[in-house]
């Protein structure tokens, strides 16, 4: 009986390896993106294609402000609760931890860090951004709920900074993501970061924090720029 089982297993493995080889010839699919079978809560087996079933292929929609008075109240509320995604992309991420200490204390301004993009509405691009990181940044940014804001920290995000001639880091962030506030410096101190939060709050209160809508409006342009430098684009165009 056990011999039979072993034979069965060997033949299965051979079949699988042949199938894998055929797949490899077509395209390289990462292990986490392979087709799989999942057991649903009611016991039935569902076939899953992660690239199409776990992400949405829909474009982002523009959500324009409607009622001026309601929007003013909403903007006040939004500006008082800025939840920042804890994603350090470069050397500037070392300037963020002091903000959580009693000396600087960003909580008094209604700013706090979150561990997941689905709970946050502000993204600090802290310093230089390599192409490899940009891919992850785009995925995280698109998972954040709207309205969302981007703070570009340091001169590397403005014109490339001291890495302007590097083959792996981008020069201008605003070609790939819409930026609300720039904080210049190399690196800016935590006080400058707090001033940047103040500026962002002012913009939101004035109703100018509409960059998520701008991203939806110029979606094709941004995607073209992103795809120009991310050569191995192996994800859906829009992945909520």
């Amino acid at each position, binding site marked *: 009986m056990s011999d039979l089982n072993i034979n069965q297993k060997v033949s299965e493995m051979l079949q699988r390896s042949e199938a894998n080889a055929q797949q490899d010839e077509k395209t390289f699919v990462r292990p986490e993106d392979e087709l799989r079978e999942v057991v649903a809560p009611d016991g039935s087996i569902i076939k899953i294609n992660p690239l199409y079933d776990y992400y949405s292929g829909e474009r982002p929609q523009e959500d324009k402000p409607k009622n001026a008075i309601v929007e003013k109240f909403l903007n006040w509320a939004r500006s008082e609760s800025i939840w920042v995604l804890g994603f350090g992309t470069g050397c500037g991420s070392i300037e963020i931890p002091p903000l959580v200490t009693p000396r600087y204390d960003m909580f008094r301004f209604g700013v706090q860090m979150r561990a997941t993009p689905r709970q946050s509405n502000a993204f600090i691009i802290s310093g230089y951004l390599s*192409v*490899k990181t940009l*891919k992850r940044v785009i995925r995280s940014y698109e998972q954040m709920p709207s309205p969302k804001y981007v703070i570009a920290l340091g001169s590397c995000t*403005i*014109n*490339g900074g001291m890495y*302007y*001639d*590097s*083959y*792996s*880091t*981008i*020069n*201008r962030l605003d*070609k790939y993501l819409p930026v609300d506030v720039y904080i210049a410096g190399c690196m800016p101190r935590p006080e400058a970061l707090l001033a940047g939060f103040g500026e962002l709050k002012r913009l939101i209160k004035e109703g100018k924090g509409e960059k998520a809508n701008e991203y939806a409006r110029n979606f094709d342009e941004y995607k073209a*720029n992103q795809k*120009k*430098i*991310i*050569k*191995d684009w192996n994800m859906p165009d829009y992945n909520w």
Partner: protein
Amino acid sequence: MEHARLQLVNKLFNDRPKSYKYNLFQMKLLIDRLTQHYNLTDYKQQRHNLAFVTVDKQLSPDIITHLRDYEGFSHFVLLSCVDWIEDDKLQLTYLLNQPNHKYEIGVRVLIDRKNPEMVSLHKMWKQIWTYQRELHEAFGIIFPGSPRLEENFVLEGWTEKPHMLRDFDTKEYAERTYFPRPGRTSNDPATYMREKLYPNQPVTAKTNKND
């Protein structure tokens, strides 16, 4: 009891801090032993506990195996590469460590820059294949038989020529790809000195390999 005491004394004697002269003497003995067996094209004593030897490409696996198996260089430290574009060569350095005598030897191998290929040594020390993957991406060196050589190491989807070769113009590539912001000025001291103080100086001088 007596045996244990002797063992301890021996251990203490072997583990004692070695002097500068002792290390240097041991290294000289080592190089003497090596020259009896192999033809070393170049030898340089960098420090009392570090020397570099240059060997032929065909001989290098033999010498490294000899160093590991007979001279006690059991610890592989790193594998690095230098691009000598003027000589049309790539220089590989295998840095090996001898834990008992606490000295290191760097085995340098010069390979052709046009057709960069080197024997894969991943069967001697398993970790070498990671270095070889890195060198394949950065310099385009081929190590036949090295596992996962073609996979991405640091960059993703790189289609240009290997980025660490000196004739890859990184500034030109960045300007072509990453939308440079106009109006950027430079206050680089080296540029200022070249333009204002030493206008007749050649821009690039050939680097001295023995430095």
